[in-house]
């Protein structure tokens, strides 16, 4: 195998460029590669170069193939990259496929301790071999370390190949093992081994390497579950209830650890938040609703199967008008599906979860920064509109590392508790009736348990009239139902507006949601290069606000890019804007892997091709 690296023709892959690199690291899960991958990503970030990471991991604990993809993009593209330029093939099981997938002209770094069983079958790539396992076996004593440090060795080698600043790499190791000298030393040594081996045996750095920039100042690396949890802290949440489920578990884990710091009474050391691991998802949402009714800011986090189980109680909260916040970190369905893969396939359910006429407020954060913001907004909207708010994140946003602007806090923020009458307010009025006297948003004032008898009311999921009393009277019953419908519509004006980006002369619109943002934005740039000018809209809330309607009707044709099979966002758009029904076309990516720009451009170009034009959508 060759160690020299003449630049070969790039084929139809992306030409390797400085600071435009895509790395795929193939390992076995449970072997500790996460921290090495993290190290690489953070080092590149510290070099000032935009970077993003996607973890493609299996639904088990140990022993199955897992991949980590790092995309370096000086241009700021953070969607999943189409094909890797550099593959680190540590997993003999998947090596054949990993080699097959590297883009032409790219490199594969592999552990030659276990020789290839058959020729790689490609002559358009570079195979760089290091006997990593063997080296580790020689260099390290401890059996566990021998395994773990293999990862650090490849990190060192990758650093050499990509010219990643070894000073930064070393500093990161030092910070990580600040108080564990032996581990620090071992890691340092493994790093150097990999780095030196690569320098000695390969022509490092590669032509496509990393060069320092200054584009990450003011940014942070964070995953959406962590930032959503932090948003709940800032929003003032005090009650959380959940049932573990991938990929939402890390949201509550983060809230739990933030609570250790931010939910402790300084005087007594006692907790100012109560986190309840419920017996199931009905228990979790029930607890949240009970706490919301009582006046606490309360939330739960879950994923598809859990959301299915919450249907009944979500309808209850909708009809009783009780605030509740639910984070649904979507994964690939249906049913158990692929618990560790991403999808946006709970959109339709979220919008109308529950039997009967039920409609919810849904927020769609597009990245971890929005997870933080929308967490806060979700509580404000839930309390203002006295209704469940579902925040639809997904595995890609929730569990992957994204570079986003540093989170900021406006000290003037005060929670919007909505219309709550306290005892003093009640003294001003003659009598209190729960569902009377709506404000312009069609919201009526509520009172909290424990706050006094004058405001006492009996919340019920059965038919009730404007007074809150049980009714079977058609007119009384309908009056409340109609107000609920208007209230839901009114919330459209208070939810987050879509993010719209216009380009002069565009007659085509690209519409997307949530984690689809980066790929669609990148695709728009690529399409523009090919002469297809598009406007962009990323929808961020349901019910849809007027700009959504305008965007759809303004464009001759819109492609709705979403990560599910059944065009769920598309469906909601058609229902809401029938006038645009015929202009909408779907681009659906739903294999569980985050959408790439190439999938979007290919989809658009195919549909715009003369052949496609012949047969209308």
């Amino acid at each position: 195998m060759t160690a020299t690296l003449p630049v070969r023709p790039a084929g139809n892959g992306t030409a390797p460029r400085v600071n435009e690199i895509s790395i795929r690291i193939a390992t076995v899960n449970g072997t500790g590669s996460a921290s090495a991958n993290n190290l690489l990503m953070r080092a590149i970030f510290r070099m000032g170069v935009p970077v993003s990471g996607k973890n493609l991991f299996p639904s088990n604990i140990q022993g199955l193939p897992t991949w980590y993809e790092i995309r370096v993009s000086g241009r700021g593209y953070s969607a999943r990259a189409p094909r890797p330029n550099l593959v680190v093939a540590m997993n003999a099981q998947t090596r054949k496929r990993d080699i097959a997938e590297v883009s032409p002209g790219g490199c594969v770094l592999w552990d030659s301790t276990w020789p290839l069983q058959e020729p790689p079958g490609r002559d358009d790539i570079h195979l760089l071999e290091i006997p990593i396992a063997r080296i580790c076996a020689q260099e390290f004593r401890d059996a566990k370390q021998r395994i773990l440090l293999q990862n650090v060795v490849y990190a060192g080698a990758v650093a050499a190949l990509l010219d990643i600043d070894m000073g930064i790499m070393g500093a990161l190791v030092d910070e990580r093992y600040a108080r564990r000298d032996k581990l620090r030393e071992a890691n340092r040594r493994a790093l150097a081994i990999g780095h030196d081996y690569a320098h000695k045996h390969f022509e490092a750095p590669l032509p496509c390497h990393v060069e320092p920039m200054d584009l990450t100042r003011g940014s942070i690396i964070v995953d959406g579950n962590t930032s959503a949890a932090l948003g709940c802290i800032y929003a003032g949440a005090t009650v959380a209830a959940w049932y573990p489920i991938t990929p939402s578990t890390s949201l509550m884990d983060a809230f739990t650890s933030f609570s250790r710091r931010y939910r402790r009474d300084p005087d007594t050391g006692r907790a100012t938040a109560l986190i309840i691991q419920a017996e199931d998802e009905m228990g979790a949402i029930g607890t949240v609703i009970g706490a919301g009714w009582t006046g606490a800011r309360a939330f739960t986090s879950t994923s598809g199967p859990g959301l299915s189980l919450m249907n009944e109680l979500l309808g209850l909260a909708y009809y009783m008008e009780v605030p509740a916040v639910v984070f649904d970190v979507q994964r690939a369905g249906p049913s158990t599906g692929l618990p560790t893969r991403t999808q946006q396939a709970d959109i339709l359910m979220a919008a109308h979860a529950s039997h009967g006429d039920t409609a919810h407020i849904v927020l769609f954060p597009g990245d971890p920064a929005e997870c933080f913001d929308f967490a806060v907004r979700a509580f404000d909207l839930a309390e203002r509109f006295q209704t469940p708010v579902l925040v639809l994140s997904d595995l890609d946003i929730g569990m992957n590392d994204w570079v986003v602007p540093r989170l900021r806090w406006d000290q003037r923020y005060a929670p919007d508790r909505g219309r709550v009458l306290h005892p003093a307010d009640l003294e001003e009025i003659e009598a209190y009736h729960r569902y009377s006297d709506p404000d312009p948003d069609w919201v009526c004032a509520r009172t909290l348990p424990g706050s006094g008898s004058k405001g006492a009311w009996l919340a019920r999921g059965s038919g009730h009239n404007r007074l809150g009393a049980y009714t079977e009277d058609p007119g009384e019953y309908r009056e409340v139902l109609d107000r609920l419908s208007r209230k839901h519509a009114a919330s459209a004006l208070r939810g987050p507006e879509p993010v719209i980006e216009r380009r002069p002369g565009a007659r085509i619109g690209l519409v997307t949601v949530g984690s689809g943002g980066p790929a669609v934005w990148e695709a728009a740039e690529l399409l523009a290069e090919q002469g297809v000018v598009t406007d962009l809209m990323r929808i961020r809330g349901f019910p849809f606000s007027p700009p959504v309607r305008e965007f759809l009707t303004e464009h001759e044709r819109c492609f709705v890019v979403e990560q599910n099979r059944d065009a769920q966002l598309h469906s909601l758009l058609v229902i809401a804007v029938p006038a645009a029904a015929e202009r909408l076309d779907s681009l659906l990516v739903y294999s569980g892997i985050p959408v790439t720009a190439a999938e979007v451009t290919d989809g658009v170009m195919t549909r715009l091709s003369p052949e496609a034009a012949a047969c209308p959508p």
Partner: protein
Amino acid sequence: MPTVVRPAVRHPGLPVNALGLTVRDYEGGMSTLCAGCGHDSVTAALVQALWELAVPPHRVAKLSGIGCSAKTVGYFLNGAHGFNGAHGRMAPIATGAGAANRDLLLIGISGDGDSLSIGIGHLVHLIRRNLRMVYIIENNGVYGLTKGQFSPSADIGSTTSKGTANVMEPIDPMLLGLSLGATFLARGFSGDKAELIPILKAATAHRGLAIVDVISPCVSFNDHEGSTKSYRFTREHEVRVTETDFVPPRPEILASIGWEGITDLTLHDGSLVRARAVPSGYDPTDRIAVEEHLREARACGEVPTGILFVDSSRPDLHEMSGTVSQPLVDVPYAKLCPGAAELEKFGSV
């Protein structure tokens, strides 16, 4: 939480309690249950108990699921907030309410279907959490509201009005509670108000989950010959194993009480509840003995009533969780928000 007590001037003729309130102030809306339904008697006992205890009405949160029994939260304590939720989900709702405001006196009214069928998973875990709450099961052996199907508490051999006999082992909430570490278990009979009232008082005094299983006959669907949840059957088979007295706070008494079937349940205000054993030697703090007694009673068709088991040693949800003593809803936002500077530090790589 601010306290709003309405002046008790409207019923000059009626006796008033320590808060100056009459029993009317503890009542609720008109019942729409069947005439003679046991549940209405439970409501009446509850009204009486709360009035005698002089519980401030607004301090109570009433909770229920769905069923005839669940409806009764509308029939007492108009001055308290209430939550008549979804079938089987009272426990989680109560958990949330109690988590958010530990100063509320949670009173939940459930049915045997609501609690032992669709809601049993939640009940089991509520027991583990030992949420401070009065949890009443109005137990009639049937689903009343859906017209009389057997519930999981129907005894083997008990028949429907058409004569079909139940064949499945019943769930006895008392035995279930014992096996799961419940901390307060009592059984009453809606036809025996004299016994029920002090039991309910004791339940409100318990620091933890107080489960009160009340045999409460369904006159429309399960009060016939052959039913083991009828008025007649229960009246004939009821056996009090403890007599409960409620003792208002008098510190000098506290000192003088040793164990002779007396369980010292101390109310937050210092009140005391005494459970005197009726069968000599019945000890409501001995889990195994209680279990044995209940099993034997069941075998000979007896319905033991009274405070059956008490364990005051276990922490409740808030104690287990180490939460602040103030209700969480009262923690000011300023104490919860870490502020801009803290966020500035977040995520430094």
